[in-house]
């Protein structure tokens, strides 16, 4: 059984940034956790009732209140400021790389349909093809997913990429990411969407650019759904 607090392997450019922010939080909360819990146990042991023991009449300490108000405040606000840049980088639509390769992904009960441009290279034209439950992308290339949903809210979760975004019917939400190594990884639904929610899984395969081009060409030639 894995009781580890270490994050699993990550394969995207966001991964290390998110993971290191996680570790920063883990360190801070870990130190606070041990400090407070050990103090708690220590006080319970040291000040437990014994015959003849009397408590000291202490109502408070203004300086202590100030210290333990300002210190947590500084820490949490510091964390917030520290995280802002990463949040913007991931979520701000205006910061999505202009050269991102764009795919439409439409979630529906209970499958993922990824629409790729056809031979004309344009998304949204008649020659587009749909890959069902299996995304294919090139490595080291920013990818932009225009995330949509047909029926209810789903959530596009690529755990190894540290990517998650709700797919909301009536909305078209951009999500971007860039893979750093090839391989086959997980696509999961992370928002309860009905009785098939638990099996709304797919895969995302990262190819080298050459392999991806070959795959794409093959799909465009067939014009068929990929299984």
């Amino acid at each position, binding site marked *: 059984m894995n009781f580890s607090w270490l994050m699993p392997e990550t394969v995207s450019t966001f991964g290390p940034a*998110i993971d290191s922010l996680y570790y920063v939080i883990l360190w801070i909360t870990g130190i606070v956790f041990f400090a407070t819990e050990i103090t708690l146990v220590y006080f319970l042991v040291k000040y437990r009732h014994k015959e003849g023991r009397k408590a000291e009449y202490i*109502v408070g300490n203004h300086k202590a209140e100030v210290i333990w108000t300002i210190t947590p405040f500084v820490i949490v606000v510091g964390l917030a400021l520290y995280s802002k840049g990463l949040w913007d980088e991931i979520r701000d639509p205006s910061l999505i790389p202009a050269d991102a390769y764009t795919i439409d992904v439409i979630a529906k009960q209970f499958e993922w349909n990824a629409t790729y441009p056809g031979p004309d290279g344009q998304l949204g034209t008649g020659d587009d093809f749909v890959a069902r439950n299996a995304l294919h992308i090139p490595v080291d290339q920013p990818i932009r997913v225009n995330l949509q949903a047909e029926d209810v809210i789903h959530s596009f979760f690529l755990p190894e990429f540290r990517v*998650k975004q709700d797919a*909301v019917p009536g909305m078209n939400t951009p999500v971007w990411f860039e893979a750093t190594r090839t391989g086959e990884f997980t696509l999961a639904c992370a928002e309860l969407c009905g009785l098939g929610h638990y099996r709304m899984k797919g895969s995302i395969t990262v190819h080298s650019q050459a392999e991806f081009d070959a795959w794409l060409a093959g799909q465009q030639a067939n014009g068929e759904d990929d299984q």
Partner: protein
Amino acid sequence: MSTTTVAEPHAGHEEHHDLGFVRTYLFSTDHKMIARQFLFVSLFFLLVGGILAGMVRWQLGFPGQPMPFGNLLPDTMAPGGIILPEFYNSLVTMHATFMVFFALMPMLAGVFGNLLIPLQIGADDMAFPKLNMLSFWITPVAGAIMLASFFVEGGAAGAGWTSYAPLSTSGEWTGVYMGQILWLVSLIIVGFSSITGAVNYVSTVINMRAPGMTWFRIPLATWSLFITAWLLLLAVPILTGGLILLLFDQTIGTAFFRTAGSGEPLLWQHIFWFFGHPEVYILILPAMGMVSEVIACRSRKPIFGYHAMVLALAAIAFLGWIVWGHHMFQSGMNPMLGMTFMATTMVIAVPSAIKTFNWLGTLWKGDIHFDTPLLHGVSFVSLFIIGGLSGIFMAVAPVDIYFHDTYFIVAHLHYVLVGGSLFGLFCGITFWYPKMFGRMMHEGLGKIHWVLSFIFYNLTFFPMHNLGVQGMMRRIYDPNQYEFLQALQPMNTFISINMFIFASVQAIFVFNFLWSLKKGKEAGNNPWKSNTLEWTVPSPPPHGNFPQMPIVYRGPYEYSHPDAEEDYWPQDMPPVSDTGGQSVGAPTPETVPPESVLGD
């Protein structure tokens, strides 16, 4: 210093009265009886919620296996005792629904608000006793409707306790039709219990305090319930409005949240969480208040930083209104809002931190008596620390991208709601049981229940953090569908087994509770040697509570005062009449003579 004529004393009501069984036990307007009624009803629904959790954990621990006694369930739920995916979705939904609305809220606000507020402020009952009775009766009626929803065609609601639209707007998405409607109707109804209760609590605390009970002499338990009442008053109606609009979408064909008619699914989330976030503070504040009483009393020491504790409660309540978007970081809402909500969410950690340090400060240099209430109280502190710290991972929005809708959140919420609220309730129940029922609970059984609960609670919920770190999503009927989660099955089984043990251990508590009703040691007025007014009257208190109106001379935490004879100094004990001009007992600004205590 003369004895003055204050308001006419409330007459004692010790004379035998005979209202009959119905007026005494069923339709009582006495706040103490109503507290007991809330207690029995909410403990029943705690059992219901626990059974539902057990079934969830069976499926996760032993996926696809026939559940013990599962053959009792109809085939629409668990054919051959094997839980179906649609029933699983109902289980997670109804587990949370029953626990939040029918167990925790009635126990925290209904039981302790009713029991403590009038007694701690020196009043003879609530401001509106008949309204109070109505407030109680709404709860079991709504609860019965919620239970009934299991037995309609299509089964009980299965869209999560958060009931996100458009999933919840139509049975075409969930397979649940009447069940989803009954869920809404039940919650609309039970909201009135909270609203009317809140009107009562707020009015009572403002208007019915005994002479000398100034705002900053009110015990923290009552303070926390007063502030919680404000949250209930203002947050629950928001939910009621949203539930009504969703009900219209389900029944009369409106499209507030359905995209078919240009409805806005995110509008539902905003309404729900605008209620939902104050709601979680509703679920924790009373526990915090009770734990403060118990830690101070059992350490024989004033609460450290009483004023700061009150301000922290108020700050939590106030800030709780402006953080709701942290439930929606990944929802598709404008990312700029993500930043503002992250900022406010981080700030709300601060008053909780202040309270934690103040609890530690209370224990420091105390004379700590390790009885069951104290053990539960410090457990609350230790587990709330974990729950609060784990929240920080989600508050930092980029990290929330990974943890949202995973078991990390399930761990966090159960640390604050079970580790926090439930242990806080154990603390409150074991402490005030003598006052309610006139007898002490069995101390040995109490300690056994505590230690086993603490151990198996942690073994159940702590590993869920690790499941979240591995990326396991929540509300998933069968994680083994995903290769990356298959290695987690042993952990899930481990958690399930510990949960079953944790649940079974609660039988000790139930046994202790029932046994002590008849066989517990007689409690007397003040078994804990506490300062607050409820301990100055018999256990249980008679109708009208106080033989004559108490007069309050000091704050509630004068424990181990150097000038006092004993290590406690009840709020209503008059100052000792002057013994040769000493400062003890002679009227001082703090021990205000009766005339000037009126009209604070």
